[in-house]
């Protein structure tokens, strides 16, 4: 595998490392960037909409669609019986049913598909279908699922040392639990697909998806055609965040099914409320822990159980709960530990990938543990965090991968100093003593996030680089652009390889007929994998060009190099365009594929051991919050972040990822409150009741810096993945809220704080702290009296 080492002195004039504008920025601000629903629908094109069940659990007794069928403009109504191939669109394991004809396992499960001349008619007719059910009581309680061992996939454990024998020996032992809420992706562009039959009996599918190859495979299976008859195209998504990794597939498959039956191009776009109801979300979790530690707060043993609400089917839950387990240590060494992960069945939509992929829910356990130890011992939580960080000699993770990079100590020290942690801590303490109702809190939390798909075979990527005779360069790769700036970074990487301006490079739609067998753009891996594949493709062509020039001008290879849009050969130079034309005339191939597979990684799932991550990305956030102890209202007033992206390929894009991820993480833990009714229907099914952060929620002071450090591993230009890791910096807000509440007890006791920490949850914790304090004062008074 070829790796491209950068010459730091050349970097100043290079394409990589510059804050280039997002490749679509001008189009986005002028409304000319096309999303799937913006493309003109062909004449005679149809619209499909699913008919949704109105119960959460039970069976279908009868279906009467005559009223819907009679609506003027309805073309056909399709059911499971109309599916020529598979009715199961499970991405890894079976269980995700496209159209059910019998068993209902979650509220609003699709039953039929209405195909009509307009979107409005399809939606309206879908509501006219009458279905009779045999209603059963939905299972929504995770405690019941754990007790009855209702799993969508078997539980797994990771173990290091012997927690059973060592934990009881610790001088201090505490335990705790936490309910962690889920999260709706709320990509601004909802799920949408257009399927158009091809003359070969295949299907051309345009889909807002992070996973074009999987759409290709599933459409093929549903309409019973070989993969090569299906082409999927994806230019850009209006946000993904994991919500379009597997959740785009059912709608693409249904659009294709309708296109197959009607011979017409068919669009399926979910209305926002239905998108909320029938697509998976971040898994809610229930975590429990027992931890043993010494007088200083040094952890000796930890026993952690993480239970994810997986919904009705496996989807990606096996790997998501596993990633929660992988991050239940966060950045802290547990000399003896056991980390168990339960994949619990509940009668809801099947929960799915969401930025962090279970990692955040696991990391919450670690951050709760260190906070709880600190308040138990009456120490500053930051001291406990620093004490327990991985360091040489204390560097084995629960899955036995050895940690090799120890930069968090330095990163924390930098933020401690630049953001005046200790001085502000003192000031806040004094503020809180003098403020009757408003209390401030401060917390610094680190992030150590493992980079690589934990499913090893997904760590591969392909790219296709085409150079045309005018010197312009077209790049395709297997990744998808969802706003994260992947195409911009890929253009910079290819531009760097040829020493041309990235503006000369067009990175266009992802298509399964350009680059095959791609992995989803997920696990923060987009640039790591596809950037390296594109670089390898570019280097292949570059090598040919250099060898050609050497032959043609009779020069040594060392006498040839590319710089500033030019080829320098011997004492001469020519423009890149002239070189390409010369090469073409001399019949040199000007296109190449590129391929990359991540080295070093392996993991034995049964044993729970291995080296699943190529490297770790790190970050540190310091958050200051205020709470109103009368109402539980709260605000994050200042945030300081230092984040490790290795050598940044595009600092502006990386900072954009960090800021956006932080706010999304903060929203997950504060305002974003998914609620289900007792009948299993989603109560918060739209932005009127589900509140993602708005512009006023951005902290008044928000400082984000990149940590100056190259990736020690040979990643593309020694950069690091950035999509997911900073999401978990939002945990600092949760920890700071607890810190503010703990001020009520003079930091002697911090009540549990389930998430999202809405005003209601915070007020309940405040009351608990006030009651504790009242009891404590009474006890102290009693003791004084007794003395």
């Amino acid at each position, binding site marked *: 595998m070829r790796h491209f080492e950068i010459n730091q002195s050349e970097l100043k004039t290079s394409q990589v490392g510059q804050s280039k504008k997002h490749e679509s920025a001008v189009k986005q601000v002028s409304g000319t960037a096309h999303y799937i629903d913006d493309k003109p629908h062909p004449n005679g094109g149809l619209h499909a909409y699913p008919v949704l069940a109105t119960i959460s659990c039970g069976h279908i007794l009868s279906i009467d669609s005559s009223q819907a069928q009679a609506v003027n403009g309805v073309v056909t109504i399709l059911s499971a019986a109309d599916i020529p191939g598979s009715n199961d669109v499970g991405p890894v394991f079976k269980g995700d049913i496209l159209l059910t004809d019998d068993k209902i396992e979650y509220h609003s499960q699709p039953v039929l598909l209405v195909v009509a001349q307009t979107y409005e008619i399809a939606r309206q007719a879908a509501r006219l279908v009458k279905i009779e059910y045999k209603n059963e009581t939905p299972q929504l309680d995770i405690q019941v699922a754990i007790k009855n061992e209702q799993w969508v996939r078997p539980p797994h454990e990771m173990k290091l040392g012997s927690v059973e024998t060592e934990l009881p020996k610790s001088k201090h032992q505490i335990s705790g639990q936490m309910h962690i809420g889920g999260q709706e992706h709320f*990509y601004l562009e909802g799920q949408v697909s257009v399927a158009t039959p091809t003359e070969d009996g295949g299907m051309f599918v345009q889909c807002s998806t992070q996973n074009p190859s999987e759409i290709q495979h599933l459409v093929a299976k549903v309409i019973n055609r070989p993969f090569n008859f299906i082409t999927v195209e994806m230019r850009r998504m209006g946000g993904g965040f994991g919500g379009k990794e597997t959740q785009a597939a059912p709608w693409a498959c249904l659009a294709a099914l309708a296109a197959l039956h009607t011979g017409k191009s068919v669009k399926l776009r979910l209305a926002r409320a239905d998108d909320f109801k029938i697509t998976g979300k971040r898994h809610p979790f229930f975590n429990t822990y027992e931890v043993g530690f010494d007088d200083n707060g040094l952890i000796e043993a930890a026993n952690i159980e993480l239970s994810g609400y997986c919904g009705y089917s496996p989807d990606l839950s096996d790997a998501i709960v596993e990633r929660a387990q992988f991050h239940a240590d966060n950045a802290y060494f547990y000399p003896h530990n056991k980390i168990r992960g339960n994949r619990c069945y509940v009668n809801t939509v099947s929960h799915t990938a969401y930025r962090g992929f279970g990692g955040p829910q696991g990391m919450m356990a670690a951050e709760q543990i260190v906070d709880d130890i600190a308040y138990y011992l009456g120490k500053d939580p930051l001291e406990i965090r620093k004490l327990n960080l991985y360091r040489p000699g204390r560097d084995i993770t629960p899955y036995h991968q050895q940690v090799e990079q120890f930069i968090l100590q330095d990163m924390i020290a930098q933020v401690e100093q630049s953001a005046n942690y200790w001085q502000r801590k003192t000031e806040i303490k004094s503020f809180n003593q003098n403020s009757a109702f408003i209390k401030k809190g401060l917390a610094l939390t680190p992030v150590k996030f493992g980079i690589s798909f934990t499913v090893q075979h997904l760590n591969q990527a392909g790219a296709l680089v085409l150079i045309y005779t005018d010197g312009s360069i077209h790049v395709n790769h297997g990744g998808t652009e969802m706003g994260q700036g992947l195409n911009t970074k890929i253009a910079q990487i290819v531009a760097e390889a040829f020493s041309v301006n990235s503006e000369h490079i067009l990175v266009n739609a992802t298509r399964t007929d350009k680059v095959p067998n791609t992995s989803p753009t997920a696990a923060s891996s987009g640039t790591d994998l596809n950037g390296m594949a594109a670089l390898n493709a570019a280097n292949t062509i570059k090598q040919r060009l250099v060898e050609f020039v050497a032959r043609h001008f009779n020069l040594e290879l060392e006498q040839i190099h590319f710089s500033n849009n030019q080829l320098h050969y011997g004492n001469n130079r020519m423009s890149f365009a002239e070189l390409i034309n010369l090469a073409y005339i001399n019949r040199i191939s000007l296109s190449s594929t590129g391929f990359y597979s991540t080295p070093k990684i392996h993991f034995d799932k049964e044993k729970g051991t291995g080296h699943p991550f190529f490297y770790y990305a790190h970050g540190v956030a310091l958050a200051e919050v205020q709470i109103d102890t009368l109402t539980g209202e709260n605000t994050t007033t200042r945030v300081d972040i230092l984040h490790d992206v290795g050598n940044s390929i595009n600092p502006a894009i990386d900072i954009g990822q960090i800021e956006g991820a932080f706010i999304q993480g903060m929203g997950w833990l504060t305002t974003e409150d998914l609620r289900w009714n007792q009948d299993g229907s989603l109560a918060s099914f739209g932005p*009127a009741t589900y509140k993602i952060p708005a512009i006023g929620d951005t902290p008044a002071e928000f400082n984000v810096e990149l940590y100056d450090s190259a990736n020690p591993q040979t990643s593309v230009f020694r950069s690091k993945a950035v999509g997911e890791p900073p999401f978990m910096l939002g945990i600092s807000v949760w920890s700071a809220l607890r810190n503010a509440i703990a001020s009520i007890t003079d930091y002697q006791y911090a009540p549990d704080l389930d998430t999202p920490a809405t005003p209601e949850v915070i007020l309940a914790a405040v009351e608990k702290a006030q009651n504790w304090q009242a009891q404590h004062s009474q006890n102290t008074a009693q003791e004084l009296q007794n003395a």
Partner: protein
Amino acid sequence: MIQFLLNQDLIELEAVAPSLSILDWLRTNKGKTGTKEGCASGDCGACTVLIGENKQGNWQYKSINACLMLVGNLHGKHLVTIEAVSQNAFPEFDDLHPVQKAMVECHGSQCGFCTPGIIMSMLALYLNHTSYPGKSTAIHALGGNLCRCTGYNPILKAVEKCFDYPRANFNWQAELTLLTTKLAENAIPNLTNQNCHFYLPQNLADLVKLKAQMPTAQLVAGATDLSLAFTQQLKTPQQLISVSQCQPLIGYQQNQDGMFIGAATPYAEFIKQFCQIYPESTELFNRLGSTQIRNSGTLGGSIGNASPIGDPAPLLIALNAKIELASERGKRVIALEDYFIAYKTTQLKPDEVISGFYLPPRPLNLTLACHKISKRIEDDISTVCLVMALTTDNQHIITANIAFGGMTAIPARAKQTEAALIKQPTELATFKAAAKQISQDFSPLSDVRASAEYRVKVSENLLIRSWHQTFGQIEIQKNHSDNIQLPATRVQHAAL
């Protein structure tokens, strides 16, 4: 027929569905897909467009949600979409408007789906200011635009930066003049689609006549609430009568008898005046929906829909406002409090319309406190809204109006709580005792916003907070220049 300008084109429509939103019309009928549908419920702002209105010969522009506003309401107006903002249909960077340039240069777009809406909200701000009006105004202008990618920091920077470029002006005068001259007179603008009708009466006589003729017709003003029946419940109304251009219902008057606010006056047009009399209500109005909602929503719409959670009702009830109802039979004025009967049931007769609201003059000895609790500050519906209006003689409470939203099926006063305050000294103990009565007054529901227990607890605490804010003053830590301590959530906003 209705007539309006779409960017530079004169549009004349006769046969479209009465419930057709501007967004659906733009995207489906006109193929103008720059304006995006994010939620179709007025909560995300991706569909933000500008509406220009001729105010005494001066065209003024404001942002609205295209998914909520009905096409029929566009009559006589100038609809400006993202397609008209830059100098070229497929622009290069140099063709962009300053608000667009700033967004590009500040890296303000990632996935780009919310971006056209953000641009339009920024443009509204730009057109109404010649220099950067400060961060809190920027937040106020963009509070109704959700972005899931950026965390908003680059957008806030772009709002500041857009004023740094040379000033850009639009020249729409010729088209606007054409529209003005084209506007048909002496007719009720209307739309007819099959057997569905939309009417836009311009005067009260026409309005009440139409309502008498069609007692089952649905009245609509800004449609910020009613449109949800169309976009979410997929209802197709047969007859819609829009009051949004009925002149006597628009605007406000103020004299020694108090203030009259026309029922169809958008909030944005009277908030400033209202808050001059009642500055304590500023936050309540600033947090009512979003800028887009305040630019189209009306008191008549909010009260007419009798929502149990609308914020204006508790405020107006606490201030002893009266509601004026008009019909061909004449006008009648009743206390707003008596207007609400039960959930979504009111005193409004089938042939009546709400024409306006009377606010009595502010009593000299009035003490007012307004509170809104919600999960989010910007654009959120109240979990609990509390308005406390007391008159005092310095030491004792003479009258007490404690009105709540979100506590029961209609906006309502807490009578037992009030009784516990009247004639009592203005001391903390009085309020603590009165707070205990709230659970006697109401048995709220648990719902998606909060539990019943929280609603009661927070209401009790808000009453106590009201004392600290109004009579207490000393007990609460101050940390900015206002003479009252704001709750934590508001500290940030006030301090910006």
